């Protein structure tokens, strides 16, 4: 595996291998005082974040450091991007400085794929940490890992993704990955927050506008934040109305089957798409998602950087 750019096209065997590796890493580090593995010693990983992030950036940095890689964080603010340097030049500069792997988050959909093309001659691996509204593959992988932990497997499960699907790269990545791993996915949102042609993303994808009708049928529900920072138009009359119609309130949480799991990629707007009490309830796996995020990202770095270079 040279790059991880998307879950669309990621073959299920590779995805499961990454999840199995993440699980092994979690078990290896369990109870250890020294949370350090020497495997990526001498490898240099640079994160390029052109958008705000708490969990993803910290998660990648911790993942790299726990594998003994040298991790450097570059954020757009305070870098030469402010002087007008292009994405391509920034990437080539970092590759020339010695990066074996570049982890990129960028507001333009397709940015990670472009980067992989520009870095092809240099041999640097690229990990997509979120490109515009397109994909966020490591988020989907950690969501799948969390579902495997809680439900035993993803295969045959019914998972709803509720909220701002239109602007959500998390939704796209999850639809592709969960479907490839055998789950039935149903997207639930007001019509204004669903892209045209969404039902064609993968065969068998279900689309609904009625949260209450779907809740009793689910093994898991993933709540999405309304991405106000990506909205340039009126998508619903008011935040309150959205919250009443689509928010996961305590009453709605009671409609879920007993074993069903609640996921959220974060950050949460407590009281908007999810009630605070639901976010903190035992059926919520939100903090496990974050913990799994580190192990999954360690696994991704392992699969990209530990073995022999492809094509060599």
């Amino acid at each position, binding site marked *: 595996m040279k790059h991880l750019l998307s879950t669309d096209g990621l073959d299920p065997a590779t995805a499961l291998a990454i999840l199995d590796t993440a699980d092994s890493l979690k078990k290896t580090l369990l109870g250890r005082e020294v949370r350090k593995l020497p495997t990526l010693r001498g490898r240099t990983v640079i994160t390029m974040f052109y958008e705000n992030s708490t969990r993803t950036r910290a998660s990648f940095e911790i993942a790299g450091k726990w594998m003994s890689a040298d991790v450097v964080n570059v954020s757009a603010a305070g870098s030469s991007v402010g002087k007008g340097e292009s994405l391509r030049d920034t990437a080539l500069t970092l590759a020339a400085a010695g990066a074996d792997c570049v982890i990129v988050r960028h507001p333009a959909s397709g940015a990670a794929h472009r980067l992989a093309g520009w870095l092809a001659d240099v041999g640097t691996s690229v990990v997509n940490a979120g490109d515009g509204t397109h994909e966020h593959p490591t988020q989907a992988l950690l969501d799948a890992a969390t579902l495997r932990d809680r439900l035993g497997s993803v295969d045959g499960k019914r998972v709803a993704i509720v909220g701002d699907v239109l602007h959500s790269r998390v939704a796209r990545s999850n639809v592709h990955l969960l479907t490839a791993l055998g789950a039935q996915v149903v997207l639930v949102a007001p019509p204004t927050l669903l892209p045209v042609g969404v039902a064609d993303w993968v065969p068998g994808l279900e689309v609904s506008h009625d949260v209450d009708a779907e809740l009793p049928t689910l093994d898991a529900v993933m709540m999405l934040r309304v991405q106000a920072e990506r909205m340039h138009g009126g998508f619903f009359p008011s935040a309150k109305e959205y919250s009443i119609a689509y928010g996961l309130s305590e009453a709605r949480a009671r409609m879920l089957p007993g074993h069903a799991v609640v996921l959220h990629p974060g950050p949460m707007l407590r009281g908007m798409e999810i009630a605070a009490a639901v976010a903190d309830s035992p059926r919520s796996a939100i903090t496990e998602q974050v913990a799994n995020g580190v192990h999954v990202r360690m696994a991704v770095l392992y699969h990209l950087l530990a073995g*022999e270079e492809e094509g060599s």
Partner: protein
Amino acid sequence: MASRDRGAADPTERRELLSAGDVARTIARMAHQVIEKTALGGSGASPVVLLGIPTRGGPLAARLAAKIEDFAGVQVPFGTLDVTLYRDDLRRKPTRPLGATALPTGGIDDALVILVDDVLFSGRTIRAALDALRDAGRPRAVQLAVLVDRGHRELPIRADYVGKNVPTARSEEVNVLLSETDERDAVLLSRSEPSP
């Protein structure tokens, strides 16, 4: 170490060095040796823990623990220690899947840890195991038990308990089969075709 290249070359001849019965007797003898050397069950003796190195070290450790319990009436905790993340040759091969690490519930601090593996060859796997052990805790001491020692050490490492010494040529391959993973018990010696 013996898991390297398994199945990669079609061996021209495979000779059975140990039959299923031989394997069982060898493990039984090793169990007696462990009991004797560690003074197992005696007063003042450190707790003993067996850690098998995946893949076949795991079942071997479990079998040793079972025999030790039969002979000495002592239950020795056992588990597995995967060394893949500590190997020195990761970048020369395609990405390897990780094996399972499962330390016994009491941990390994202050215990006498006996690493268990099927074949001892260059010693690099054991060196990786010592590195892995170092991050997992602080045993009082570490010993090594192997079913087969085939020589050709590249590091100053030796086993405390050896099932069988098998002098080999470098081009030969020693394969241990265990019913837990391979449908039968045996130790085979094969000469693989050198790659062109």
